[in-house]
């Protein structure tokens, strides 16, 4: 059952990314191009995605557990450190250069050609590197 829910959520996520236009790297870069020709579409996507989640967190607050019995993840400890800020800055830079963040990169992996595959493999490599380099190794979340 958990796998069915996860598969359905992944599929809906992927189709939503496709419908929203966020698998188009030019639209994402257009959102970042605030000094040029600014494309505000991403704000509609993010706003649209946050709405159901505002509701979901309200529902979750009244239920200690998800349908599958797993506890609702608690609010993470609010550690503001160089790892969070520096990591986000690196992510933003890469996001701008390619026009892909992880979700859309995966949603476009199967059909966006060599470029999409190269980005996806490099992204996977970067994730493995963080885990493999002792100085960067991910702390338990």
């Amino acid at each position, binding site marked *: 059952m958990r796998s069915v829910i996860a598969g359905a*959520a992944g599929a809906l996520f992927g189709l939503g990314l496709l419908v929203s236009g966020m698998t188009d790297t030019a639209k994402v870069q257009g959102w970042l191009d605030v000094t040029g020709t600014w494309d505000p*579409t*991403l704000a509609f996507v993010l706003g649209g995605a946050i709405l159901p989640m505002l509701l979901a967190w309200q529902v979750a607050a009244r239920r200690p557990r998800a349908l599958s019995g797993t506890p609702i993840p608690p609010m993470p400890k609010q550690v503001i450190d160089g790892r969070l800020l*520096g990591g986000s*800055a690196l992510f933003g830079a890469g*996001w*701008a250069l390619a026009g892909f*963040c992880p979700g859309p990169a995966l949603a476009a992996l199967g059909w966006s050609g060599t470029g999409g595959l190269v980005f996806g493999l490099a992204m996977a490599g970067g994730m493995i590197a*963080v885990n493999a380099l002792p100085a960067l190794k991910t702390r338990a*979340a």
Partner: protein
Amino acid sequence: MTLLVNPQDWLFGLTGGLMIGAAAALLLLGNGRIMGASGILGNVLTGTGPRIRHEDLPFLLGLIGAPMLAVLVWGAPDSHVSGDLPLLALAGVLVGMGTRLANGCTSGHGVCGMSRFSTRSILATAVYLFAGMLTFFVARHLIGGL
């Protein structure tokens, strides 16, 4: 700044966004999981999460496979992916490392974290938005690349 006005794109954006949020709500209320693309992919690649979850593979299969099927049926939209492969490789490494260091990306911090008013997520989102805008400005308007 010129504003690109395209209400049809905004409507598609809003619709797709609602689908993304509904997917995140389904994963949260169904499985008790945060729908973060980088977190789930990172977990599958490295097994670093609190425990390895067998449901992460079907999630990724849906995320990669459903758009592929849709593209087979309706045709591929233009993804405008750069032809500069070294640039894409550099960008991919930055995105992969950055999202793991920051424990989240646009879906995890931007959608799931901000909607529960997590300070970490709001700050992370502000930083990657600003870094993205700054990087894009430098790369396109100062250097003339992209």
